[in-house]
């Protein structure tokens, strides 16, 4: 695995969009070519060297490329978008759309992450060691299908609408999630520590597992027990077959 470290030295006022920070854009290029990669801020195009200090080597194949990002990247969006292989590690916070449309590879965030993580994702793995925003693994605006595969783990808390429209894959949030987890969910698994309100709205399939006692909304009917968990099926109003298991 060849490692390249990018250290944030300047943050443009309008934030930064960095879908080109992904192993596929780095592999097979010289360090000079990497520093020339295009990033976007508002309607301006910047070069990577204008905002990052670069150190390390590039790999021949994207699968062997590891990118490490350092600094406060909470206003940097779209890192690892459409990534297919390789690895990205972010030593700090990161902004919106991390790993959107990702189909392979590994992303690890050591701080907190913004909203829309892993939107439309079909494979790969994202781990957030801190908290994350809303709309994790959800469908893009105007679309009905969210995450279709892969794995997202949040060790802290997350916002609302986690796994909206999800039809495959796995999301784990060890902490608390806000309202509307798994709305319009069709398949896949969401595991949460605890949750706010209104889980599984219009849920047609898939499974939500809650690690804490939770009073189920009336639009889920009780179907029995499985070990320590009480099982419920719904959304009854939509004749859905989604399952929510809550610890007793």
């Amino acid at each position: 695995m060849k490692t390249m470290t990018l250290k944030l030295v300047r943050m443009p006022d309008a934030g930064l969009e960095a879908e080109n920070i992904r192993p596929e854009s780095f592999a097979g290029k010289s360090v000079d070519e990497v520093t020339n990669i295009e990033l976007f801020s508002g309607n301006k195009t910047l070069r990577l060297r204008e905002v990052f200090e670069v150190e390390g080597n590039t790999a021949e194949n994207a699968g062997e490329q590891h990118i490490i990002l350092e600094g406060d990247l909470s206003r940097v969006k779209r890192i690892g978008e459409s990534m297919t292989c390789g690895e990205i590690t972010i030593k700090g916070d990161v902004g919106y759309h991390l790993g959107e449309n990702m189909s392979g590879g590994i992303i690890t965030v050591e701080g907190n992450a913004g909203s829309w993580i892993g939107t439309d994702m079909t494979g790969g793995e994202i781990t957030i060691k801190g908290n994350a925003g809303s709309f994790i693994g959800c469908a893009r605006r105007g679309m009905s299908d969210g995450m279709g595969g892969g794995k997202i783990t949040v060790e802290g808390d997350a916002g609302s609408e986690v796994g909206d429209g999800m039809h495959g894959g796995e999301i784990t949030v060890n902490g608390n999630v806000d309202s509307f987890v798994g709305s319009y969910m069709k398949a896949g698994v969401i595991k949460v520590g605890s949750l706010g309100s209104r889980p599984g709205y219009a849920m047609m399939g898939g499974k939500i597992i809650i690690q804490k006692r939770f009073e189920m909304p009336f639009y889920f009917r009780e179907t029995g027990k499985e070990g320590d968990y009480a099982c419920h099926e719904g959304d009854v109003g939509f004749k859905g077959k989604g399952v929510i298991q809550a610890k007793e």
Partner: protein
Amino acid sequence: MIYREVTCPVCGCGCDDIEVEVEDNTIKNVKDACGIGKSKFGEIGSLDRVLKPMKREGKDFVEISWGEAIDAAAKILVEADHPLIYGFSENSCEAMKVGIDIAERIRGFVDSQSSHCHGLTIIAEQRTGLPSCTLGMVMNYADLIIYWGSNAMDSHPRHMSRFSTYPRGIYRKQGRRDRKIVVLDVRKTCTAKIANHFIQIEPNKDFELISALRIALDGGEIKQEKIAGVTWEEIKKLAEMMKNCEYGVTFVGLGLTHSAGKYNNIDNLFSLAKKLNDYTRFSVIPMRGHYNVAGFNEVMTWRSGYPFAVDYFRGYPRYNPGETSVIDMLARKEVDAMLSISADPGAHFPRKCVERMAEIPLISIEVARTPTTELAELIIPGVISGMESEATYYRLDNVPLTAKKFLDPPFTQTSSDEKTLRMIYNRIVELQEGRV
């Protein structure tokens, strides 16, 4: 001179039956308009009317020529890295088109009041679809009218008398007596006082009530005695009423979009209306606020494919409310220049957004002095669409109509906001092509 069938450019009803008496280019009398409409017609003679372009110099404003103002506005927008064009809900569709052209040309982003109003309804529309109809259908066919989270008597004063409750229609010959009115709200509003049934909901519990209605429609039962403060018996009664009506319509207001659940409340309601169409004919119509706020969504959609909150930073349209919407962009300080037209964000936006507006060069195209013009770098006089210039506008049921002009603007340099924006657009093109 008396002008008949004049349009009132205030709320989404777009009443087009107003009679206005004009003498020496001033309004002498207004007939048939509601209180809100009358005060808007009175605005024409307002002492606060902006008549000349002004530029900030220190704490004061100094008058400048139209040419200087157009040039200064174009320069601010061309030099910006992430400019915002905002407003339009009280403009004609023609002016909106030019505003969107400016945003595309300077690669900025464009949004309207719908972003923090019924934009949430539009997000739900995109997911579930909108089972809707026109107000003409309501007038002629509907026998069950539900106002949910909407106090039409105060927000759209002539809505009930012109379209939903009192008018006699082809199949509702007895008008009010042929219709049942149901109001669901958190308090007993003026609309609730004239309804046949009023159902008081606990605040932020609309979502649960809609879900319960869906179960009641299927003949299901639930364990709870009350949902959202409403008894299960009452919910079943309402479900039966909805199921057995001949033509039902729900008018949905901001009470649903701006309480807990946001667009999911609306999504749930649209799904319920779709289900009701298994039994009878049932529609939902959002109670749009400004007279052409629905028009912005229409124009934006045929220009870019998206209804609001569109960014052109990359030269092509992108859309993600919550990220590319006006409140979020301003709060995150991702705007470095702003053109506000026929809107008063200075009076309505959250403090954080207004603070950002005060930091950046702000161009304000306004009819009268407002809190926004006081923050502005540049003030350009606005023309009242639908009164001083002809306008195409969309009524709240998305029906396009034309508003007639019956007065001249109090200046000669421009005849409409469309023309003002066109002058700015042309100057932008000149600056970008180096033809200074």
